[in-house]
């Protein structure tokens, strides 16, 4: 497969992606016209709550959306300049696992319970790198050592259930990185883990990223994880990107009421607090979105226009965008100076 040079050092460019699901309840626009870029070597965080579309976005990138009931309706997904949506199934299979790898939240459901870990790892490199059995096995043990599995040589022949949750997630990382992919997509990789194990796994991802230069997309709802792991952040809500900015900017000068609300509703462990700020109401029913801004009902800044007109995607400065009728005001209030 020929590689076309990518533009502007962007490893991945998603343009106007729309992924819809046909359900008994109507068409669910799980991802509804989103665009973003990932620079080589960077970590992009995608933040959102249930129903935001964050997971569907990533499943769309590697074309794991079940069709039916889902369908990538339109858009472009440029990976190194090549549009993944135009590739044949065979071509995309060569990329999945080899050049784009994914790790999921629950390692128990992504690992085959009937196969030894060694075999699952060996499968990857035998298939994608053409390793012989011996080469694959050596490589597998090496990967397990790299991710910190103690006694890797002996434990390689264990089954997934013989490992703890944290260890299983390390095995997943070993599998994901065994072919040295250019892009790693990690979907809530530590949500199911204890906090001290989470710290270990996140540190591991950071270290491996430094060593191999892999670019990472990290999906999470935990703003603390975003703060510690990412260079850029996208905040999603009801299938849309509500805000997009470099991480430091997003936390210090948020330009969107939803982002502000989220930041305020996370308890700050270092300070005394009275009542916690809460975003009122519930996340919207994505199958039946009302006209106007999907966040209007829950927003502190809502005015009439918000209920009738869909908000513009406003550019606040070079790298910072917000989907809001009052983006500039919200940004100024946070202390930002709109360009």
């Amino acid at each position, binding site marked *: 497969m020929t590689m076309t040079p990518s533009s502007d050092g962007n490893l991945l460019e998603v343009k106007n992606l729309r992924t819809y699901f046909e359900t008994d309840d109507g068409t669910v626009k799980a991802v509804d016209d989103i665009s973003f870029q990932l620079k080589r070597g960077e970590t992009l965080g995608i933040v959102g*709550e*249930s129903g935001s579309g964050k997971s569907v976005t990533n499943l769309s990138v590697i074309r794991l959306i079940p069709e039916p009931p889902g369908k990538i309706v339109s858009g472009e997904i440029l990976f190194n300049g090549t549009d993944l949506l135009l590739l044949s199934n065979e071509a995309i299979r060569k990329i999945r696992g080899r050049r784009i790898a994914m790790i999921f939240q629950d390692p128990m459901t992504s690992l085959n319970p009937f196969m030894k870990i060694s075999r699952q790892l060996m499968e990857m490199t035998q298939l994608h790198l053409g390793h012989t059995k011996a080469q694959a096995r050596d490589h597998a043990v090496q990967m397990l050592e790299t991710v910190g599995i*103690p006694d890797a040589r002996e434990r390689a022949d264990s089954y997934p259930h013989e490992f*703890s*949750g*944290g*260890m299983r997630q390390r095995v997943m990382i070993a599998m994901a990185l065994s072919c040295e992919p250019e892009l790693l997509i990690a979907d809530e990789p530590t949500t199911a883990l*204890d*906090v*001290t*194990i*989470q*710290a*270990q796994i*996140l*540190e591991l991802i950071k270290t491996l990223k430094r060593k191999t230069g892999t670019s990472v997309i990290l999906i999470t*709802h*935990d*703003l*603390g*994880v*975003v*703060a*510690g792991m990412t260079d850029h952040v996208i905040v999603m809500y009801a299938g849309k990107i509500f805000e997009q900015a470099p*991480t*430091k900017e997003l*936390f*210090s000068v948020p330009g969107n009421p939803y982002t502000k*609300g*989220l*930041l305020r*509703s*996370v*308890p*700050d*462990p*270092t300070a*005394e*607090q009275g*009542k*916690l*700020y*809460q*975003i*009122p109401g*519930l*996340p919207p029913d994505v199958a039946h979105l009302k006209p106007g801004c999907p966040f209007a009902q829950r927003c502190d800044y809502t005015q009439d226009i918000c209920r009738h007109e869909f908000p513009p995607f406003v550019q606040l400065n070079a790298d910072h965008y917000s989907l809001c009728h009052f983006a500039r005001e919200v940004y100024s209030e946070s202390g930002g100076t709109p360009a």
Partner: protein
Amino acid sequence: MSANNSTLLSIRDLKVHFDLGGGGLLDKLLGKNPEKRVVKAVDGVSLEIYERETLGLVGESGCGKSTLGRAILRLTEPTAGQVFYRDRDLARLSQRQLREQRRHLQIIFQDPYASLNPRMTVGQIVGEPLETFRLARGREVEKRVQELLETVGLSKRFVKRYPHEFSGGQRQRIGIARALAVDPDFIVADEPISALDVSIQAQIMNLLDRLRREKNLTYLFISHDLRAIRHVSDRVAVMYLGKLVEIAEAKSIYKEPLMPYTKALISAVPVPDPQVEATRQRIMLEGDVPSPINPPSGCPFHTRCPYAIDVCKDVVPSLVEIKPSHFAACIRISPAQPHIEDVAPGAAPGLE
């Protein structure tokens, strides 16, 4: 706060051990499980819970916090120890006597999807305790149910609906309404927000806080989420492998954790501030939490503790008041030397 309020619950040396079998003649002959295997889920916990406080109970998987919460209510039977509620040892009561006491001690469960009977309407779920304890009948029940729903921020219209029609956060509110129905004194909240979205978590925490003030409730708030615990609790107790390892006021636990496990736990929590995250020094623990089946000897944390010395594997540390109202279980610190980083290598001031 703790000094002024009286004790509502006094837990003394509570143990919950689960027998996994093994160690029998046949096991030995067959070569499998030659040792008797016991899960020491809760292994000798003593604790006072004061009236109108929220005591946070924190720890990672397998530490025994949920088991402790359930054992207090005898939803899981204690193996040994005492649970005094207003001078009565709940652990010793007959089933009938216990049922009477249960009215005062309620629970909110973690999983809002599994803890509501899918075949009962909201009205039936919230009304059931009133009927079980014969607190109301007929129209009274209906009226009370409506009041309760309003109290937790749900519309009266929901009375005839079924659980599956609601979101996680709403279901949790239904669970709270049910717990409040009997006007209890004490509520065990077992991971009440873990399954919820961030924005809904804040709503539920605020609700629980308001209810506590309005109804003079006492909470045992069990969670692995340190940020939430810090926010809602007056005091925080930390558990590790079935034992209590530290207990203090919430802000002290956070600002000045004394026991090495607590330090590692606090340092592992990600902070939503990129500046802090970029510069902080983390205490990284090696490996996994050991299994609660036949846990390590001596201090259960010694296998992963960056400050462990030889004698740590021989001595089970007791909770010592290292600073006023701040208790920690570690032989390497003492009231004279509270900070383990300053203690001379190899020294154990707590033993002298």
